[in-house]
């Protein structure tokens, strides 16, 4: 998948059928991160921590619902994808890339959490097995699509 045209907040990508299939696979996993994963503070010195934590979870839940509807619309109404003589194209706007990035990164971080939150710079390495491989694959795929969209936004 690569950017072929960017004009007035509209981005057109060339995407192969295999890439589209992989993108669909990643998007269908959304959401992966549990709402309770995010904490407002590391310490308990925030005023009324329970109320504020609840507010955070409500805010994230509302955003998640909005993103989920966007994903569903993209998967069910394939208006974003056109088939041309040169192959298939994906057309998205800047704001659509923003929610796509949120969705892709949720899948990336969620897969990383499912892998046991490994850290290559510490002793917390991935203990690979058949059960974990799909999470690793999804983490890498989501990251690859993120990179394409970020490169498109940052311009030439």
């Amino acid at each position, binding site marked *: 998948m690569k950017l072929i045209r960017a004009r007035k907040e509209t981005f057109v990508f060339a995407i192969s059928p295999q890439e589209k299939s992989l993108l669909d696979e990643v998007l269908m996993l959304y959401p992966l991160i549990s709402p309770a994963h995010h904490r*407002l503070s590391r310490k308990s010195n925030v005023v009324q921590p329970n109320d504020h934590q609840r507010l955070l979870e409500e805010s994230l839940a509302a955003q998640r619902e909005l993103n989920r509807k966007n994903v569903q619309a993209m998967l069910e109404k394939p208006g974003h994808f056109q088939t041309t003589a040169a192959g298939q194209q994906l057309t998205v706007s800047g704001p659509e890339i923003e929610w796509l990035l949120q969705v892709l990164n949720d899948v*990336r971080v969620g897969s990383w959490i499912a892998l046991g939150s490994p850290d290559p710079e510490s002793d917390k390495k991935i203990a690979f097995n058949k059960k974990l491989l799909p999470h690793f694959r999804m983490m890498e795929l989501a990251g690859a699509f993120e990179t394409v969209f970020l490169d498109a936004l940052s311009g030439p």
Partner: protein
Amino acid sequence: MQRRGTVLLPRPRGAAHQSNSNQDTGALDSCTRAFYLPIMAATATPEVRPDIDRDEETDSSTKLESGYLVICWNDPVNLMDYVTHVFQVVFGWQRQKAKVHMLQVHNEGKSVLVRESMEKAEFYVHQLQKYSLHATMERD
């Protein structure tokens, strides 16, 4: 603010000679006081020293509005370009500034992004977490 000053009366000429025993303390003996005070009350220009007392109403750091730090913590999963992009979107920063904070997160483990009121800090943490960044708010 309540003003509290001390009015000082100028020492009359010769007063020191007349009351050497009271020179150290600056106090006037009863005779001198009886003679000079009515005159001084009418002619002396009062000198007002600045108020050096602490004003408990305002000089208390604990009563200033507490600030909250919005902190982004390092993790090995979020892509560097992604973090830079999110800082640009959430705070409206130029790429250069966003990159400086991203590198601080990467190299030092965390970066204090802004210091804000509780409401604003909470808003920023919500925005950062919508992008799945590891961000929290801590009381300054």
